[in-house]
């Protein structure tokens, strides 16, 4: 097989698994859907953390924002949101199929657009911060959002909101949300693959390598940084709106703005796979999700301790990630076999030399 053939075969296998997966393992449909969301998380974190060198700990903010925006749009189209949340789920929303899907579509669009707007808005505040200050500042934004939403009665406060119920069979619902997750993850991947080909990727890589010099060369760094964050926010908002509907219940601290779970998972997944590459975050997400589910099953009660330990071990001993390690071990493989990886590999090597 020649290289392009192998590439086509690889993509085909992944797509095939994505389509057939829920039918092969019907009991794991939800887990597989979460896997695609995780891949989306890792990919979007890597735009900033890997490609641009801005390590955010608060990207989860856009996930939660999208979730709430989507829910409010879905409910607000047909009901009074304040009145609905005041009853804490005691009032059930009865929607026809048409109403439900119109609400879901509009809600997801609003979630993505709203999160993007938030990114532009907060970009002004946080992008003056560098290095660890940026990480802590973004972490602060995410924690503050969770706490504030928890006291906001219009959004149901700490009690949360129940999203409209899907008007159909549960199996059908699970499949619908699975395929939406799958679609969004693929959409993210394709968009980023396209994005990393062009000038934009060169610009944000320049910011990562030396921001002052990039600015000196005439790059409008603030604009690029905001754009990169907006792209991440767009997809995170989309996934947030979807995830809220998949879970069926939204709550500020554990579901919408889980800073110490999903918020840190996305960082760890990208680092585990190898940051600054296109495939690294995907690989990391798959491995991490497998480990996570295994510890959940076999180490119940200790799962968080196990995951925290995994984070420490990953950061301390294995920061280059799986792909980074492979590139060091077999550089010629990444130079010869796959074209994209050779680009990534070359630029990764350059970065390591610079550092």
């Amino acid at each position, binding site marked *: 097989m020649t290289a392009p053939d192998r590439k086509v075969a690889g993509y085909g296998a992944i797509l095939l698994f994505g389509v057939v997966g829920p039918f092969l393992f019907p009991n794991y449909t939800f887990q597989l859907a979460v896997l695609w969301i995780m891949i989306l998380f890792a990919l979007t974190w890597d735009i900033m953390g890997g490609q641009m060198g801005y390590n955010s700990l608060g990207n989860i903010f856009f996930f939660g924002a999208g979730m709430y925006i989507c829910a409010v749009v879905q409910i607000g189209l047909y009901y009074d949101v304040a009145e609905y949340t005041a009853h804490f789920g005691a009032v059930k929303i009865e929607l026809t199929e048409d109403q439900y899907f119109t609400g879901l579509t509009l809600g997801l669009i609003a979630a993505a657009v709203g999160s993007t707007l938030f990114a532009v808005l907060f970009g002004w505040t946080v992008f003056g911060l560098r290095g660890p200050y940026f990480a*802590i500042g973004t972490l602060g934004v995410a924690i503050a959002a969770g706490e504030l939403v*928890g006291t906001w009665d219009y959004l149901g406060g700490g009690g949360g909101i129940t999203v409209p119920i899907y008007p159909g069979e549960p199996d059908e619902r699970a499949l619908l949300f699975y395929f939406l997750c799958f679609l969004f993850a693929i959409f993210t991947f394709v968009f980023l693959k396209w994005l990393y080909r062009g000038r934009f990727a060169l610009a944000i890589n320049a910011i990562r390598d030396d921001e002052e010099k990039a600015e000196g060369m005439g790059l409008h760094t603030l604009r690029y940084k905001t754009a990169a964050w907006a792209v991440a926010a767009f997809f995170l908002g989309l996934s947030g709106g979807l995830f809220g509907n998949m879970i069926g219940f939204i709550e500020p601290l554990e579901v919408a703005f889980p800073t110490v779970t999903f918020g840190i998972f996305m960082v760890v997944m990208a680092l585990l796979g190898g940051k600054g590459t296109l495939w690294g975050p995907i690989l990391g997400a798959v491995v991490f999700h497998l480990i996570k589910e295994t510890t959940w099953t076999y180490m119940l009660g200790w799962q968080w301790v196990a995951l925290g330990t995994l984070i*420490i071990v990953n950061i301390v001993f294995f920061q280059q990630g799986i792909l980074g390690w492979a590139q060091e071990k077999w550089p010629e493989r990444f130079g010869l076999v796959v074209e994209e990886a050779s680009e990534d590999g070359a630029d990764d090597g350059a970065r390591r030399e610079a550092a």
Partner: protein
Amino acid sequence: MSNLSLLAQAPVLNIQLLLDGLFIGAIFVLAAYGLALVWGVMNVKNLAQGDFVIMGGYIAYVLSIDLPVWIGIPEGFLWLPISEITFFQFIKPAIHPIFGLPVAIVLMFGFGWWIYRVIVSRVVDRDMFTSLLATFGLAIVLQQLLNLLFGPEVRVAESGFDTRFLFEGLVTVADIKLISFILTVILAGIVVVFMKYSRMGQAIRATAQDRRAARVMGIDTDRVYAFTFALNAAICGAAGVLISMIWVIQPYFGLAHSIRAFVIVTAAGLGNLPGVIAAGLGLGATEQFGGFVFGAEYQQALVVGMLILVLVIRQLQQRRHRQAVI
């Protein structure tokens, strides 16, 4: 917001809030000083700072309760099956939590040393995000372990002291708050004197100024780092003991304490002890007034809001020094 007019009508309430803010703020200063120490000397930003504080608090809590302890002794020792282990139970008597102070200092010093050897020594030379993330992972492990050990309930180490009434009973000051304030001042004094006059303190300061030069002068900088981190853990442990007596502890409250320490150090700047003291007391008072005016449910949001505010102000100050494209 209606509470705001209450403050104007009854000025004596301001005194109450201010006093409470100072008592709690003094303890924030301790933890923040530890953070500034580690940050300044080894350039590690410790996000597990608050969890060290909470650990110290649980040490005092464990001392202050009657704790049943089981000891299993296998009959005839090791070659018998496990079912024949007999368990003896004895009850560890309650000790006043103030004695937790030396215990926590010693235990946390050892713990800090161990954490430095196992984790921090491996990230100390790398970029700052690495240390931040590694200590964040440590914070998650610690809070989960505490949760497994003690459960998610909010705890207080009861000191059993009296409460004083000032201004005809309008202002209450618990004796334990006064004692803890005095202890805080003494502890801070000891640390400052130690840093100034002891050999190790001088070595720490020398290493902070120039690590290479310090090594050339024969200072074992690795040992200095280990000592600094252990000292920080001990300071946090002491702060935790005091917090558990005058406030509350809970496994997940650590992150808020970490953020408080960051707010204080960022606002004051490194190596600025008067600034740290002012910022810590100010944060304590702000939290008390904010909690009173907006309601207690906003307290966490207030702390994080202060962080963002401080970062934005710092950024505006820095803008003059940087020719950024606006």
